[in-house]
């Protein structure tokens, strides 16, 4: 039996790696992947708490969360593709892309 705390530690490590990537990387694809890491950290927490409390809702939410994440990635990739078409780059610090803000 793997102790419950291991799951939480794994999830925390994954989340921090993801957060670190989001904060530091300037390539949009890597940032997207890091967001996925953070999501999956949350999913692990869901499953762990669900099993620990013998509650099936945890797993149900994970299925839900994964499908939402898939949709989110689809939209994100589509935006990135368009940005790439426009600027031939996916760098988030690109001056032309950041100037679209206002």
């Amino acid at each position, binding site marked *: 039996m793997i102790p419950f705390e291991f799951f939480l530690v794994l999830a925390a490590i994954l989340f921090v790696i993801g957060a670190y990537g*989001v904060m*530091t990387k300037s390539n*949009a694809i890597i940032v997207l992947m890091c967001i996925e890491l953070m999501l999956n950290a949350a999913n692990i927490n869901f499953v762990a708490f669900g099993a620990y409390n013998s509650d099936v809702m945890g797993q149900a939410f994970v299925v839900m969360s994964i499908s939402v994440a898939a949709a989110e990635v689809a939209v994100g990739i589509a935006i990135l593709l368009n940005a790439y078409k426009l600027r031939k780059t996916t760098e*988030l610090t690109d001056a032309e892309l950041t100037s*679209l*803000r206002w």
Partner: protein
Amino acid sequence: MIEYTWLIPFVPMLCFVLIGIFGQKTPEKGGYIAIAGAAISFALSGIIALEYLTGPDYPNVVVDSICWFHIGDLQLNLGYYVDGLTCMMMLFSSFISTLIFVYSVGYMGDQGGRKKRYYAEVSMFLSGMLGLIVSSNFLEMFIFWEVMGLCSYLLIGFWSFRHPEGDAASSNAASAAKKAFLVTRFGDVCLMGGLFVLLGAFGSLDFVDLFNPVNIQNVNPDTLTLGMLLCFGGVIGKSAQFPLHDWLPDAMAGPTTVSSLIHAATMVKAGVYLVARGFPLFVQNPDVMLFVGLIGGFTAFFTATMALNNMNIKRVLAYSTLSQLGYMILSLGAGGYLFALGMDSGNAALMAAGTAGFVAGCFHMMNHAFFKALLFMCSGSVIHAVGTEDMRLMGGLRKQMPITSITMLLGSLSIAGFPFFSGFWSKDLVIEAAFEAGDHNVLFMVLWVLAIVTAFMTAFYMFRMWFMTFMGEKGKNTLHAAEHGHGESPKSMTAPLCILAVFAVVSGFFIMFGLDGMLSFTELPGGFFQVGGGHSEGFEYFSELFTNPYTYLTIVLALVGIYIAYLMYAKKKINPGRFNREGESVLYKVLTKRWGFPDLYNQLSWKLGYGIARGVDYVDRQVVDGTVNGLSGAVVGGGEAVSRVQTGDVHDYSSVVLLGIAVLAVLFIVIAKIMGGI
């Protein structure tokens, strides 16, 4: 047939539509349609009046209406209301209009395609007047009242696009139309206010409800007084009484036929008709009637002064109309005052004297319609021939225009009150009514003196006009017209003149044959105020008038007025310049400036109207717009300022999010600790 009374205003309205759509294709651009419509209305009026007056219902009113719409408990109706007054009004209005339309065929003959517009508008005008006359309630009346206001605006400004006399005249026509519209609108707003007061007090605007003494008893007298004074404000505007009289002389800018229509058959008669129709409500307070009489008597005198030295043939007639309208209002006011006193004290003799005043006012309205239509159409005939309205350029036209000169002489004799002509009978009855009221209030005595003086002035200025136009040396334009062979007007113009001349002479005798009974104002034993069914004095008027010494006074004054005019303008024995220092005296100048009323109107509208407009403009631009613009500016500016926070760098955003989450988490833990444990 009485159930078809609604057709009387409907037929000219139909003509308006027909001429508007098909006018251009018909001969005379719809002129014959307009004539036919007016003639049909006249025929219907005749049949209906005959049927009513000889029928079983007389003297009870015949009234019928359909529901137009409901608002809550209020029911507003459309219908007709036939009594003696209605019969007289619709007969003379449609009859005179028919003649004017026939005359228009000659007078407006050279106007080309614009005739379509003219005939359509006069048809609607007539429809407005007839609708007003047969209305069964004040709201319906008000609608037709406004129809007339619109049509008068359109017709006075008929030449505002291309005037035969040039651009100055056409802009003059445009401003005259505007003035007529705005000044009468001022009165109409008062009338509308009065109708609201009446509606609030009675809960109905139907005449059958309003003229019922039982209902009148239930109304607060002060409310009723307020309502009637406001309604009289409408009369002052429409019938051009002092101080709103100044639009009528300007309205001469329209075609002469339109002036004739406005002065004789429609428009200004509507105001007098409103007083006569609303008489049951007006007589509830003697002070209201005193006010009515004062306005009328003063207008009669005041406006007659301005006719004394005017050189424009149509303007003289316009001022005479104002003066005669003043007579009618004075008569109704004096009669109403006596009637009101009689009702208060239960004195039947006083009430009978009041009825006599009412009859005199309505009778004078009818006579005036005949002779004023005649006079205007004669002046139109003269203008048609000589091409000017300035009497100094006329003169000596008698030989060139025999029919016009004779018919105009008959009309002038009538309005001057020459014995046995129509104006004589009614004017003396009016003056007598003022005299009777003078026994009870000294103010009416003053008005009586003014009325007598006015009678003298009327005789003088009418004959001044006639002599200046037809007698004396031939003026510039007379000679010019003679050279070009402009003699007597065509038959379509002279025929109506002859017909009207007959009426101008004999219509005064109608009162001997039951007209006074038909117009007498009475309270029926059943308890309803109405017009008609009174005792007719018949030929007693002869003895009554010719045993009254004051009648001789007015006759002598009228003759003296005519004689002075004769000496001044036909014989040239007296130089009129002697009395005004050749046009340099103060009075002469004041009269030429119309007592400064046009200036007063201008000053009022500039100082007051423009001042208010500027105030409103300030509030609108600075306060209302300022608030809205300030709010939107604050939102936009705030948004601009806050939007600078966005750097466009996703790392900054994510750091803020994480920082926020961290802060929230710390806060959560701290609060949980303070609240007592997780």
